[in-house]
């Protein structure tokens, strides 16, 4: 298999054409993603709109800029995300109404994007399209969010970062989880799986339940499960109908820390492999040549944007990537992260994976010691989704004129001279034409001085004694 091409620009910026938004468009065009868009095509832009209180998710600016580019090409873009699994008892994106409210709070709306922002899998998350994937490593079918399945083309606009289950949260996961409907997510998360599902592989420890009287927050033990599988019975025993577990993940953070459930690491490995299968499902539905990938490797937090917080980034901004290959683009980002020095004070340093060459995400993002940051990548390679061998092509900045403010391209005088004359924003008529009431000269060195560095501090008490 020949190498896949990944187009790349670093994260340094010093001008309009080297801004990250401009670089995103430059690599988008260089990678040929623009060629996917034909006039009147409905183009889905799949983003992660961020959980409530997360602050590392991609700024809406990027989706807006991409949507504008797609409109230039004649396409009809929409930006989307999908309902999540009820992975937390307090999740903010588990239904359409919740995700739209969260997205709006995070800045994603038609007003900011210049195109619709939609929940792609319906009100509860059951609006989907079933696709067979006989090539799959584990999964043989996937449930793709209907709005994504119905699109003519798809751009996965991904915030590349860490993830506690996926280890990396990249392009593969953006589609392998993010483009699946809610029932599709249960599939990828191994719900009901006879080997890797929580029902099969989890070890329930009801003996660690000390009774309602000794468990002030006992209600959460029942209420964390939307399938009503946990119950404290008449004998004050905690029971779990594990055979029906859908792997919504909602009980993980409740049962695990309380010693009531051993979450199986092998489930995480299986999910990571299944992510690639499900991503292939997306490509099969839309067309293998109609799905493109942009990875914005910036604000690289150890946890995913699905966390309701964002920690210090573990490595500096890595840059902007584009490719037609989900496997290659994620591999390129992982390689860049490995080659980077970890950020001091970040979780990379705390976990001692901050040196050049360290596997940053396995150390700083994974939940379990045994997880690998390349499981999804290797699976994608195995099933023919893409190629982990890639050529990294560094792009040059585009024409600066292309990235200027686009609503009015005139220079300042034609835009403002008449209005300035009329409204006089500078009061030339005051203070002999100087405009404002100000001192002519002040001691600026006095306020520039770093007093904490002063060496000539006089110890008044001792100097007085000496004088005496």
């Amino acid at each position, binding site marked *: 298999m020949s190498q896949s091409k990944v187009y790349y620009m670093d994260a340094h910026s010093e001008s309009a054409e080297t801004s990250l938004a401009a670089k995103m468009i430059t690599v988008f065009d260089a990678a040929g993603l623009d060629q996917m868009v034909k006039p009147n095509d409905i183009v889905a832009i799949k983003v992660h709109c961020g959980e409530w209180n997360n602050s590392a998710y991609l700024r809406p600016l990027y989706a807006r800029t991409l949507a504008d580019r797609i409109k230039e090409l004649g396409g009809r873009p929409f930006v989307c995300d999908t309902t999540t699994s009820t992975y937390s008892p307090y999740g903010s994106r588990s239904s359409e109404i919740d995700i739209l409210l969260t997205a709006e709070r995070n800045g994603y709306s038609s007003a900011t994007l210049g195109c619709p922002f939609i929940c792609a899998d319906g009100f509860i998350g059951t609006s989907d399209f079933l696709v067979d994937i006989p090539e799959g490593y584990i999964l043989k079918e996937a449930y793709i969010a209907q709005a994504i399945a119905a699109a003519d083309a798809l751009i996965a606009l991904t915030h590349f970062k860490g993830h506690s289950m996926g280890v990396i949260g990249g392009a593969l996961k953006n589609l392998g989880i993010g483009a699946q409907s809610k029932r599709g997510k249960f599939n990828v998360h191994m719900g009901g799986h006879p080997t890797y599902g929580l029902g099969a592989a989890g070890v329930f420890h009801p003996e660690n339940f000390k009774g309602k009287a000794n468990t002030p927050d006992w209600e959460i033990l029942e209420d964390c499960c939307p399938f009503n599988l946990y119950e404290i019975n008449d004998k004050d025993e905690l029971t779990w109908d594990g055979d029906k577990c859908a792997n919504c993940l909602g009980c993980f953070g409740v049962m*695990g*820390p*309380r*010693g009531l*459930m*051993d*979450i199986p*690491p092998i489930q995480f490995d299986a999910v990571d492999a299944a992510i690639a299968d499900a991503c292939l499902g997306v490509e099969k539905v839309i067309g293998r040549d109609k799905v493109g990938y942009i990875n914005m490797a910036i604000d690289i937090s150890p946890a995913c944007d699905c966390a309701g917080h964002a920690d210090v980034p573990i490595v500096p901004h890595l840059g902007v990537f584009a490719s037609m290959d989900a496997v290659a683009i994620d591999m390129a980002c992982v390689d860049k992260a490995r080659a980077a020095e970890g950020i001091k004070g970040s979780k990379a340093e*705390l*976990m*001692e*994976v901050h040196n050049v060459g360290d596997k940053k995400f396995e*150390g700083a993002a*994974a*939940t*379990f*010691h045994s997880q690998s940051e390349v499981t999804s990548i290797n699976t994608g390679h195995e099933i023919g989704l893409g190629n982990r061998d890639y050529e990294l092509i560094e792009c040059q900045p585009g024409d600066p004129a292309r990235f200027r403010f686009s609503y009015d391209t005139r220079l300042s005088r034609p835009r403002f001279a008449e209005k300035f004359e009329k409204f006089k924003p500078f009061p030339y008529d005051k203070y002999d034409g100087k405009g404002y009431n100000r001192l002519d000269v002040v001691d600026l060195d006095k306020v520039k001085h770093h007093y904490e560095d002063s060496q000539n501090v006089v110890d008044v008490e001792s100097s007085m004694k000496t004088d005496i």
Partner: protein
Amino acid sequence: MQSGQEMLETTISTCKSISDGLSDQNEDWSNSIVEIVEKFEEISDTFFFKTMPSIPSTRTAMRDAEALLNAKIALDWNSFKDLIDTLITNSQTVIEKAGMKGTTLT
């Protein structure tokens, strides 16, 4: 990278070496180390130590124990006094993070 469980086992082993004959020097010190070993054996193999979040606190306790053992070998009892307090404090953190809130080491 060692797992949290492996680090815990190393810490238990180091603490056992520390406690060996320590009562001849100071009975209270010996009791504290024995108590740490008991609590750590109690929480060993629990879910927490299979997870990555167990690593920072367990690694700290592991290194504290190594330093304490070195002080004992060097018969540096002045340093030992400070180091055992550090180990007790950081072992307490491990126990709390492992979900055994309310346990107090002496």
